C-alpha cells in the first residue's frame, strides 16, 4: 500500500514534510531556513525566517508533484520579493556548488581519456557551461529579474515583456542528459567506471532539480508577471 502523503499545510510539522520527500531538503538553504527547527510547524518556521508560508508550500508542491499548478487567486498573493530571492539562491547553488562538483569529477575522466577523447569531452563541457552561464547570469539575472523588480516598484518599460522569456532550461537539461548518455553508454568502458556512475547520479539529480526550477518559473513567475503587466497602472 502506498504511504500516506503528508498534507502540504501550514500546520504540518516541517520535519514531517522533509522526511516525506527528501528532495525538499535542498529547498531549505535557498529560502535561508537553517536546520535545528525542532518540531515547529511550517508556518512557525517560515515566520521565524521571514519567508512567505504560502510560497514555501507552493514550491514544495511543485517539487513533489510536477503536475501541480497554482490557481489565479493563489498567484495574486505571492510574495514576489521572496520568490526572486529564492530563484537567485537556486542559481547560486547550481553555479557555485553543483556545476563545480560535476566539473571536478569530469576533469578526472577527461584526464583519463587522454589525447584521443579528452579534448573533445572538455570542449563539449566548456561550450555547455558557456550556455548555462549566459542564460542564468547574463539573461535571467541581468535582464529578467531587474525588469520584474522595476515592475514591482511601479516602473513601466517597453524594452522587454515577459512573453519574450527564453525557455532555455529545456536545452540546458537536454545537454546534461546527453552528457550522461555519453558517460554511461559511449565512452570506452574501462575509463574510470566508478567515477562515471557517481557523476551520472549527480547529473540525474541536477537535471531533475533544473526541471523543477523551470516549472517554478513557468507556473509561478511568468503568470504572476503577466498579471502585473496587465494590471492598470
Amino acid at each position, binding site marked *: 500500500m502506498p504511504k500516506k502523503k503528508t498534507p502540504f499545510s501550514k500546520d504540518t510539522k516541517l520535519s514531517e514534510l522533509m522526511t516525506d520527500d527528501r528532495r525538499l531538503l535542498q529547498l531549505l538553504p535557498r529560502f535561508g531556513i537553517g536546520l535545528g527547527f525542532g518540531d515547529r510547524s511550517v508556518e512557525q518556521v517560515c515566520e521565524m525566517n521571514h519567508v512567505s508560508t504560502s510560497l514555501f508550500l507552493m514550491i514544495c508542491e511543485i517539487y513533489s508533484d510536477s503536475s501541480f499548478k497554482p490557481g489565479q487567486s493563489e498567484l495574486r498573493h505571492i510574495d514576489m520579493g521572496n520568490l526572486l530571492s529564492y530563484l537567485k539562491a537556486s542559481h547560486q547553488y547550481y553555479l557555485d556548488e553543483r556545476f563545480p562538483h560535476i566539473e571536478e569529477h569530469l576533469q578526472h575522466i577527461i584526464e583519463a581519456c587522454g589525447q584521443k*577523447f579528452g*579534448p*573533445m*569531452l572538455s570542449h*563539449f563541457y566548456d*561550450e*555547455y557551461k558557456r550556455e548555462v552561464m549566459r542564460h542564468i547570469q547574463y539573461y535571467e539575472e541581468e535582464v529578467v529579474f531587474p525588469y520584474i523588480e522595476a515592475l514591482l516598484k511601479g516602473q513601466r518599460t517597453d524594452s522587454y515583456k515577459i512573453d519574450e522569456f527564453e525557455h532555455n532550461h529545456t*536545452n540546458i537539461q*537536454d*545537454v546534461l*542528459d*546527453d*552528457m550522461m*548518455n*555519453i558517460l554511461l*553508454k*559511449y*565512452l570506452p568502458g574501462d575509463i574510470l567506471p566508478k567515477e562515471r556512475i557517481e557523476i551520472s547520479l549527480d547529473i540525474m539529480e541536477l537535471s531533475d532539480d533544473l526541471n523543477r526550477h523551470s516549472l517554478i518559473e513557468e507556473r509561478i513567475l511568468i503568470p504572476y508577471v503577466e498579471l502585473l503587466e496587465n494590471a492598470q497602472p
Partner: protein
Amino acid sequence: MRNRVIICEASEIVAIGLAEIIDSMAQFDVVLRLDSPEHLSEKILSTDANLLIIDPALLGFQYKDFISHLNKEHPRLAVVALVTTCLDHSCLLPYSGVIEINDNRAKIIAKMNEFAQNDSPKKNEDVELSKREIDVLVAVAKGMMNKEIADQMNISIHTVISHRKNITRKTGIKSVSGLTVYALLNNLIKEEELISC
C-alpha cells in the same frame, strides 16, 4: 505489434486453408493472398508486411536468387517457404523457416509463433543507425543546417527531420554538440573535419 502476413500460393484451397489458421491467431493478420510472385516487392511495400509465406514451386528458373534479393530489399521481412511438393532441400536455404503441406494446425501455430519471435532484423533496426542516418548524423556534427543537408543529400527537409528524430531515439542524444561527440567517439568523423567554433 501485430504481424502482417502475405501468402503467395497458387492453390486456392491451400491458400485459404492456411489463411484461416493464421487469422485465428491474435498477433497475425493476413493482409494479402496472391497466386503468383509478380510485383511482389511493391506489394510488400504497399501493405507494410513483415512476413511472407511463399510456395518455392512458384519460383521457376527466372526467379533464381529472388528470395535473397527480397531479403536484401526488405530487411524487416521474414520469408517462410510453404512446401507443397517434393523438392531439393538446398533451395530452402534462403528462407527463415518452412511450413509443410502436411503440418497440422497445432504445428503451424507453433511455427508461426516462432517466426514472430525470431524477428531479429527488426529489433536490430531499432538500435543501429542506418547508412542514411549516419550520413545525416555526420552532416549535423559538421554543423550543417537541415536545409543544407536536404540539398546535399537530395532529400526533403521533412525527411532530414525524420532521420534526426530516429537518430535521437536510437542514441538517446538530443543536442548538436552531443551528437558531435557521439560521431567522434564512434569514428564516424575526424576532429579535423569539424569547423572549429
